[in-house]
């Protein structure tokens, strides 16, 4: 996963998906100065690392950002997690109502 993240083009692709998820290859390559094959290769590396998931929608292949692998790193390495989670449960209703 870190190898997949180590490349600036791949980070840019992830940034694009973060901004708006579910994009096609054509949409993703339009933002990059690179051949279609180059973009496909980078997307393949990201998919192998579990960072993106593709779904077929009719004749199109849509690319979705999968934040779970990064989440796993976060959950294992960040301290005080349990404490935060308990307060999260307790405050859920209050906070949700406060964000309207």
């Amino acid at each position, binding site marked *: 996963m870190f190898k997949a993240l180590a490349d600036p083009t791949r980070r840019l692709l992830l940034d694009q998906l973060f901004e708006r998820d579910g994009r096609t290859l054509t949409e993703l390559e339009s933002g990059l100065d690179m051949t279609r094959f180059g973009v496909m290769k980078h997307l393949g590396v990201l998919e192998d690392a579990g960072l993106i998931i593709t779904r077929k929608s009719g004749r199109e292949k849509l690319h979705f950002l999968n934040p*779970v692998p990064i989440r796993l790193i976060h*959950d294992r390495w960040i301290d005080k997690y*349990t404490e935060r989670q308990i307060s*999260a*449960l307790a*405050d859920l209703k*209050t*906070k949700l109502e406060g964000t309207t």
Partner: protein
Amino acid sequence: MSATTLSTTQVYRVYIKATAEAIWTAITDPDWTDRYGYTGRAHYELRPGGRYWVNPGAEFRAEAERRGNILADVIIDGEVLEADPPRKLVTTFRMLMDEQMAAEGFSRITHEIKEIPGGVCSLTVTHELENTPTLALLVSGAQEEYGAGGGHAWVLSDIKSLLETGKSFAT
């Protein structure tokens, strides 16, 4: 991040060293669903047209009451559209804990479990959130810093911890 920047469909995948049956049980058995993520006792009538509902767990309810929030008995409801144990579960999903999200109506969640050689399964959650922007924001984890939990990524991460280590984040 605003609701408009989010896709209406969100997809999440985690790999878990567990059997498909164990993962299925963790998703569909209320004694399991109360142990990870947002907790709560999920009930599924596992046939098309069957009901789906979630009751708050005892601890969640007690904590809410301590803070002056009396929770309803049903905090999430929906309908089972497809149930193929232990591989695929499709339901509608409506969050009732918040008036705005309740008013948005039903979204649709698909759980898919696939076995991979080596005793590992992938669990993919696809949440179609076409007319539910407030819920979309919640399940994306974008409101975590405000105490709303980390959404699906957090829940899947916690299911993995629970199944692989016997412990969830809260225990």
